[in-house]
């Protein structure tokens, strides 16, 4: 294990991400299926912003219990009272209330727990609000996808754009799946997190693609490497960078998540950072194991690269034959890994 860590530390590691693409595709298809199943069976636990309702927040006084708070609020003539603990506060969700009813609840609670009315935060959401939020989110998503497709097509090429978008959709579905199965509440802040994943998921992919473009750009007629091998090299090469950039992106989000859950309980901080956290982890995986393999799959269909691959394979076969006749083992080290991987591909 220390060996692996120090190799990681030196940035000296060579994993055949592309060669194992069937494994990744399988894993991703499985995850997607589970996510979609979750979305269909469980659905998303939509927050009060989508259902419509009222939320009250106030400081938890010592000795108050959930039952007690529920009774107090119900005494104000309100129904569907749900009491939750949120950090140092009570969070009470009720049906959607009118102005005077809100005041009444605030007064009742303030009186009971010896706080002033102003210390009871309230939130009243009409049932259509969430609809508007999610409608805008969908439009935003669509516009973003188109804008990014165009941009990546210009900055790189359409295959890279397509691969990046597929990876993006993959991330979004799996993140949504995590929400469906875990029952985490989906609020507008969560949707915000979802939308932000867009940027981050692509960020990694863009860094990797930039490297692939550079490396494969050098691949001419010299038949040393196939596109697949070059892409895989580029990927391994940027692995440390990808992991590091993902890690420094995830660390602040983890900090928000930590503070959001421990200090404040439910709220914007937690909702947003949870979605971001899940999305970023999935996004890191997909930029390495989904985006690049898809790109390679697309690229290997191009005649130019097919021809190159044939030449390289012929050469390799000849070299292998020569090696067998010489009965000499292949040199040790990570070249070994590459050679094995190449063999596997040939068998397919």
């Amino acid at each position, binding site marked *: 294990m220390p060996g692996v860590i120090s190799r990681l530390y*030196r*940035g*000296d590691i*060579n994993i055949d991400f592309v060669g194992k693409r069937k494994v990744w595709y399988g894993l991703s298809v499985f995850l997607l299926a589970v996510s979609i199943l979750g979305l269909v069976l469980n659905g998303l636990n939509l927050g009060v912003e989508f259902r419509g309702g009222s939320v009250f927040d106030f400081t938890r006084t010592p000795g108050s219990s959930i039952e007690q708070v529920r009774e107090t609020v119900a005494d104000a003539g309100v129904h569907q009272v749900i009491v939750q603990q949120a950090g140092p*506060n009570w969070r009470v969700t009720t049906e959607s209330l009118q*102005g005077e009813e809100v005041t009444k609840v605030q007064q009742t609670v303030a009186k009971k727990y010896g706080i002033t*009315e*102003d*210390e009871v*935060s*309230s*939130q*009243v*959401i*009409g049932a*259509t*609000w969430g609809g*508007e*939020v999610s409608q*805008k989110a969908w439009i*935003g998503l669509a*516009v973003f996808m188109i*804008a*990014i497709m165009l*941009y*990546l097509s210009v900055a790189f090429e359409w295959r890279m754009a397509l691969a990046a978008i597929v990876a993006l959709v993959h991330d979004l579905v799996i993140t949504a799946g995590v929400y469906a199965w875990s029952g985490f509440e989906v609020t*507008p802040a969560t*949707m*915000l997190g979802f939308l*932000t994943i867009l940027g981050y998921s692509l*960020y990694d992919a*863009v860094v990797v693609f*930039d*490297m692939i473009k*550079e*490396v494969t750009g050098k691949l001419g007629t010299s038949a040393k490497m196939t596109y697949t*091998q070059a892409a895989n*090299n580029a990927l*391994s090469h*940027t692995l440390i*960078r990808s992991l*590091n950039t993902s*890690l*420094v*992106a995830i*660390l*602040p*989000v*983890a*900090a*928000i998540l930590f503070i959001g859950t421990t*200090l*404040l309980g439910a*709220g*914007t*901080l937690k909702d*947003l950072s949870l979605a971001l956290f899940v999305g970023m982890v999935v996004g890191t995986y997909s930029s390495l194991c989904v985006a690049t393999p898809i790109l390679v799959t697309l690229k290997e269909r191009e005649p130019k690269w097919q021809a190159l691959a044939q030449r390289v394979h012929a050469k390799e076969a000849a070299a292998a034959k020569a090696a067998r006749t010489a009965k000499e083992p292949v040199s040790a*080290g*990570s*070249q070994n890994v590459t050679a094995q991987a190449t063999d596997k591909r040939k068998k397919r």
Partner: protein
Amino acid sequence: MLILVMGATVALQKAFVPKFGLDLAGGTTVTLSPVLANGKAPSQESLDRAVTIIRQRVNGTGISDAQVAKANDNIVIQIPGAGRDEALRLVSTTAELRMRQVLAVAAATNQPAEVPTAAPTPSSSAAATPAATASESTPARQSAAPSGNASPAGRALSKALTAPSPDPSTSTRATTHRRAGAGAARAKASPSPSAAASPSPTAAPDDAGDPLAGQDTSGIDPALLDEFRKIDCTAKNRGQGALDDPNKQIVACSDDGTARYILDKAAVQGTEISGAQAGTDPTTGEWIVQVDFKSRGATLFADITRRITSLPAPRNQLANVLDGVVIVAPTIEEAIPGGSARISGSFTQKTATELADQLKYGALPLKFQQSSVVSVSSTLGQDQLRGGLIAGALGLIVVVFYLLLYYRGLGLIGMASLAVATVFTYLTVDVLSHNAGFRLSLPHIIGLVVSIGITADSFIVYFERIRDEIKEGRRTLRSAVEVAWRRARRTILVADAVMFIAAVVLYFLAVGDVAGFAFAMGLTTLIDIVVVFLFTKPLMSLVARLRFFSKGHKLSGLDAERMGRTSPAEQTLQEA
């Protein structure tokens, strides 16, 4: 340089702490969504009008620092301080225009000093309108352009009401010599408080105790008479947003607080107005407002004008009530059957256009529903602010720690870049909040914290490139730094462009909090580019000259062991 300039701005303005949004400072945020019968989007003009009306109502209640703004098709009202029920009620009622016959009229208050005399001077009528007086320097200016002032209700009618205005007899004369073509008849905006209130001083010049003295009170609900006697129209809130029942008589103030009225049941609803335009009278060249009615409205308007035109003043006035206040109460000079009326008076282009807008959009039944009402107590706001700041600090510390652990000496450069970016961001937010009305909210803070990652990403990309170059056998760090920069620069720009596109799309298409978050993200992406180009890269070039780094000291992050120059895997890549 930029930082120095911004730092100086901050120091000069003595504005070291950015202003906070209501979710951090405590307060109520109301989001109103327009409801239209056919599900269409409301016109921007009608929304603007609604924003103006709501702003006037909120200002009328004396709440300071409230913000009323359009956000896409919604209107967002932010009221500092938690639990302002009154304000909530005010902002959520629908403004509808109604035309009511004037039954009685008097000056704004009962104080004798403020009752205009029979021959009012501009100064005495100004005394009755403290709100208007505040911003008016001279009586002369007042009569020249009274509605150009900044009084909360400085709208069209203040002109007609405060100008040393004709008494009813003058306006009658006006009718005779200004007769337009068939179809369009006209009404004259002449109800100056002086003229209207003249019966009062005549009856009891020194006893202004009863504003109704000398007026015909027949047919008026007795309860309203009391209310009328008590109402003080010089108060800041003159009843804006009051829900007036169209089937009842009401007491109302003029919108500039100079007069009070008792008004009959609504004769014509604003919904019956089909349009209103400001224009000039072709013969006299003076500004007028032309109002057109729909067919039912035309009939109703013809009926009411026919009925009241022969009545004595003030009962021949038809008040237009918008949002609980009388915006104009012209004297009807003749029956107007054609479905098209003209209001003349001493308008300027500005006041005429304003009145036309009020009539036109007051007529639009732009109903709102409260999409969301969020009131955050100041304690919760402080908690969230603290939470956001702690999260930011924690995030920074963890990232810095990781950078130092992984990149050693290079990590210091990264740390310095992060510090510069943090200071830069803080100053930007601060300057924006004091000069561009920016309010730091929780989503902003999260956006800023999250983008620590973006900033760090950029120099990680650069550092890795430098290490690549050294691994590939570039012997001197100085050349490696330059070559790596050329390659990293492109990657950084492409990646930042992706983030920026995301931020822009989110900003323009999102609702509420999302926009704030996107704004923070876009801002920090830009700052990141500035910092990487103008700070990290030059610093790296400088540092490359130091022995500590160029000789690959153990702690520099560039030592031979770290580079793994002999790695066979790297050889493979170089061959490619």
